[in-house]
């Protein structure tokens, strides 16, 4: 039995070593994606902080919102402080909403436009893990002990090594350079400012050519109970904190398959579900679809011209609901219709 005692010892020593490396990895990142997202949140949170008393229009989603709406133009057109709080669809819904909740105030109007994948069961990407460990380790306090254990045990070597690189001077320089470069990609409202076609690298254009419709590529437009539970919890939170909630749909490439009765029915199911929850739905999925020529590199990233067009549409959609914001009206997040 002694031998098996040593096997257990080896296991425990390894576990202790992992805990030490994991702890050492918290709060520093050398992963470009994590640094990028961290820098973008810095810009967006600065924009939120410039109007700390609420009454703001806040767009929340993945990168479709980042590339889809120029909230600087929204602010000019509607006279309402507007912030683009959309970042990256590699972050799960739970994180997007939790991060937004930290900055939302009574009187804010949230326009929630998640990518269709957010209605699938939640997912954890390497980008997300790298980002949280390196840029927002405080989020670990939000998750349960069992989840923390899972994160600890499942952390990829790359994520752990990212943090360990904090002791390498060149990694610190690299991190600062990436952060600075990432911040420069956004305007002060948090909108992307580098999606002009004339500056687009050839590889990005080729990536756009290869995109597929959501039904083929993502298997299906399906909606999970888990995602709805997350969304309903957020709706409840909005109601409790006097934050108004509107739902919109992400701009995406128009494909012929979306006009088939089956796919139309799936989109209609989504709209109907939101309405059944008593949430105001601004527009519909079809009206947020554009030809491929309006996009930059993916099915969700509009180019500068497409962004301008979608922003105009967005302003028209939001105008009726935003009028109350300038008067300081506090919404209740429930559809009055």
């Amino acid at each position, binding site marked *: *039995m*002694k*031998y*098996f*005692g*040593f*096997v*257990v*010892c*080896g*296991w*425990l*020593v*390894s*576990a202790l070593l*992992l805990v030490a490396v994991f702890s050492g990895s918290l709060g520093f990142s050398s992963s470009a994606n994590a640094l990028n997202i961290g820098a973008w949140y810095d810009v967006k949170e600065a924009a939120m902080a410039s109007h700390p008393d609420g009454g703001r229009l806040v767009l929340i989603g993945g990168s479709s919102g980042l590339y889809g709406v120029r909230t600087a133009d929204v602010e000019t057109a509607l006279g309402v402080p507007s912030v683009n709080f959309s970042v990256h669809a590699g972050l799960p819904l739970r994180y997007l909403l939790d991060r937004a909740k930290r900055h939302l105030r009574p009187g804010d109007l949230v326009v929630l436009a998640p990518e269709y994948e957010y209605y699938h069961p939640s997912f954890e990407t390497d980008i997300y893990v790298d980002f949280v460990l390196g840029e927002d380790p405080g989020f670990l306090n939000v998750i349960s002990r069992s989840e923390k254990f*899972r994160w600890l*045990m*499942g952390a*990829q070597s*790359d994520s752990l090594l990212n943090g360990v690189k904090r002791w390498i001077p060149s990694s610190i320089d690299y991190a600062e350079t990436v952060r600075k470069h990432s911040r420069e990609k956004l305007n002060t409202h948090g909108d992307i400012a580098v999606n002009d076609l004339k500056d687009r690298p*050839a*590889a990005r254009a*080729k990536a756009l050519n*290869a995109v597929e419709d959501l039904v083929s590529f993502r298997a299906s437009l399906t909606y999970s109970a888990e995602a709805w539970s997350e969304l309903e919890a957020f709706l409840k939170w909005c109601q409790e904190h006097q934050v108004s909630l509107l739902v919109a749909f992400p701009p995406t490439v128009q494909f012929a398959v979306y006009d088939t009765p089956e796919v139309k029915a799936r989109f209609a199911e989504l709209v109907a579900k939101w309405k059944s929850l008593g949430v105001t739905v601004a527009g519909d999925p079809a009206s947020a679809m554009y030809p491929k020529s309006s996009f930059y590199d993916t099915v969700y990233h509009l180019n500068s011209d497409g962004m301008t067009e979608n922003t105009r549409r967005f302003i028209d959609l939001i105008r009726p609901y935003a009028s109350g914001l300038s008067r300081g009206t506090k919404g209740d997040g429930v559809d009055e219709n």
Partner: protein
Amino acid sequence: MLFHSVEFLFVFLPITWIGFLLLVRAGRFRSVLSWLTFASLVFYGWWNPAYLSLIVGSILVNFSLGRIVGSGASRKVRGATLIVGLIANIGALAYFKYANFFVDNINVVLGSGFNLEKVILPLAISFFTFQQVAYLVDVWKGGSPKYSFIEYSFFVAFFPQLIAGPIVHHLEILPQVSNERWKPLRMLNLQIGVTIFILGLFKKMVLADGCAEYATPIFNASATGIVFAPVEAWVGVVAYSLQLYFDFSGYSDMAIGLSRCFGIMLPINFDAPYKATNIIAFWRKWHITLSRFLRDYVYIPLGGSRKGVTIRYSNLLITMLIGGLWHGAGWNFVIWGGLHGVYLVVNHLFNALRWFHFAAGSVASRITGVAGWALTMLCVMIGWVFFRAADLTSAWQIIQSLVGVGAPATEALPRVLNALLEGPEKFVWLGFVSLIAIFGPSTQQYLRRYRPGFALRRSHLESRWPAWRPTAWHGVLSGVILFIVFRRYFQLSPSEFLYFNF
């Protein structure tokens, strides 16, 4: 039930082992076999209870036929019974494994429209069929003692080797459990068994699944018509070669380790095949128990090397074609088997010519050894392309990509740059795994002091690497490896073993 699944490790295995322990402690050795056979059938039925009737029926039929073949009946009756047994076994295998393939090809050749619903391949049928065919032939030859029904059922169904081998021979297994000196509950057996099992888990979950992350996207994309640049194609092929080796040898190690925990030794199935310096040596090291079966029950009955050079080489080709087809019903597998048949013939011809011979240990001998190894690996990897690719078109496309023929699509270029600039870790990982395969000790070399399995020559166990002993350091090392494996459970869901498909 997969060996590395939670239900196997934390429910099935503990229950089975505790039952085994209680029966052994009570001195009821006959009941031990019944218990292990029952547990093995539960293990098999977990996949699909409906197919339990197939394996149970197969055991009953073969046992009964074996009794007649081995009886004192006339040679004519015994011979006819053997033929019935062979036809029944091969017929069942042919139906479940090849019926769809046969009908599809008939339709292509004749332009007909025969329709056969998809026949589901029962798990392990290729393995338990071969074991029982070998048993019947041995009984016919008079080389088999009479076993009780429980002993026979145990030999066929024993769960560590049931699903994907090693393909065990009755003379290896049953004498162990029939022996009155059988002492299954030795602590050393448990220590050896657990250590081999941990090594198998590591090979499968860390090395093989780690390589699959690079192999699978390349082969899947190739199936959709994407043409790759040479670097990408080589990454895919090298990754798959390593994945397949560590997946299957990992499974074999788990089977050997599990069996040893029950005090039963299994034959070794792999002997570091990627160290082979020629194809003949490769086939002595790769899937050893299948090679042995094909040699003893196909190649030699065909005439082997006894009827002249031409017949010998055609026998070799036929044997390898059958070996290819055994792996799957598809032209890819036929070509893979045929390729290896040709490789073997060329290798034998080359040896027969005796163009040169260098003294062992000389510089010239080392140079030819390295050249032989490189050529062998190249041939083996070309074969794996056909083995893995979805169809002949994508296999051919990958082969072309490997040599840069067929001009990769222009969009492939950024991917190559991406692989080199943003993803050097894949080259580091594949390099690391390759070093283990080429220079690392095999499991049996590591366990060489304690005879980890059958069918090993002493020379195969020589190694400069430290040998395992049940000591503190080796225990700690096993614990560290186990922890690395444990972490994989939180990173990905258990993937199937590749050889479950064959």
